[in-house]
């Protein structure tokens, strides 16, 4: 729950107008929690491969929305209840940039 705590703190900070991102916690979230469906290395599992080569057709904004709102009627859940928009944008950027190993 360490990462969640960090996230909650982040959320709090974001609300008070002081956004502070914790890349370590977010990287961990991507690999561990997105990874539970997309694979620890994001190569795919129940959810598809989301490494840079396969998602390069997304622009960062659309990807951020996919993360925040999920994909309706599929197993891709909306992350809005758990993360801020800034964090989602950071994750989108991180996924597109590709240093995801």
């Amino acid at each position: 729950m360490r990462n969640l705590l960090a996230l909650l703190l982040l959320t709090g900070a974001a609300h008070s107008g002081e956004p502070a991102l914790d890349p370590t916690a977010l990287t961990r979230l991507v690999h561990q929690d997105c990874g539970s469906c997309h694979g620890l290395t994001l190569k795919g599992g129940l959810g598809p491969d989301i490494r840079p080569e396969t998602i390069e057709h997304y622009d960062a904004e659309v990807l951020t929305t996919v993360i925040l709102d999920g994909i309706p009627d599929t197993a891709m859940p909306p992350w809005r209840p758990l993360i801020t928009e800034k964090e989602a944008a950071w994750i989108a950027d991180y996924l597109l940039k590709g240093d995801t190993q």
Partner: protein
Amino acid sequence: MKTLISTFALAATLGTTAIAETIATGDLGLIIERAKGSVLLIDQSERASLARIEGLGDLSHASMVYSPDERFAYVFGRDGGLTKVDIVERKIANRVVQGGNSIGGAISDDGKLVAVSNYKPGGVRVFDADTLEMVADIPTGSKTIGLVDAPGRRFVFTMWDTGETWIADMSGEGAPAITKIPEMGENPYDALVTGNGRTYITGLFGEDGLTALDLWQDNPKPIRVLPNYGRGQKDMPVYKMPHLEGWALTGAEFVLPAVGHHEVLWIDANTLEETGRTKTYSQPVFAMARPDGRQVWVNFAHPKNDTIQVIDTVSKEIIHEFKPGPAVLHMEFTSRGHEIWVSVRDENKVKVYDTHTFDLLREIEADSPSGIFFTARAHRTGL
């Protein structure tokens, strides 16, 4: 005479090994260390880790089955790796990379065949348990989940994309005989078989409810279970798919995690009718019955995965709730249920609890531990 000669040969070999050292494996187990690609050999009686065996590849979501003699574990990794671990010699006995993206496996009732289900390319591959040579390739054209063994040298598995269940009968010579059961439901995400090998149940993600098959019938037909259990309620987002393996048979009832609802469901094992629900702290991932059936232990999906609740199966009420630590991924009971081992991934620990007093008995260091598997699984259908 052949048998007599081999008996002599065996006696001779056994004789020398017995003098060297006898290693009993009945109270041992392995813990998946998911990030490192290693497994930790553990001793239930000593509550200790004995050795780390490395080189098993990507072990996120890994699971394993045991050979009937409780010497070998077959570990199914996410990278498609199938690794045979020798827990007596504490080393990898053999390893093949069999498919792109695997999710689980099973061992046949006679211990001769090991089957692996794959997401990509979707299907099931069957290997000789001794040599790990492939003996059958069964493409399904879909992500394949819920693979279990069934009596009579059969494997049963289900397709996420097409909603079919297939029964592969490997009892004959040559290619497996396949029975296909369509219309199991939309997006089955996992399945299990009851300990007697009779009832196969798959949980559905794409619609409410579950679908059962009676494997004692020649042509099993899908039986809908709780088709409307979530009707009228808003589904909550699911951040981790629940698991049905290790689900709970508590005397006359099953208990299993609901999907998109924060509760576990109780079902009469004979009629498959709902007998109750227990509200839980969050989205349940595992609902595991203590082997005697008296308690059910439940863990939860991210972000509530630091907590365990214990439900009394007589009253169906929560009798204990505690926080073992960040990211509780798996729980395994000792075979008679007096203790439970809990992996706490983000604290790099496995914690051992007394199931009667709930006291913490021991903490064992492990690197990002996930699944815990005791060798006693070797003797249970479906595990």
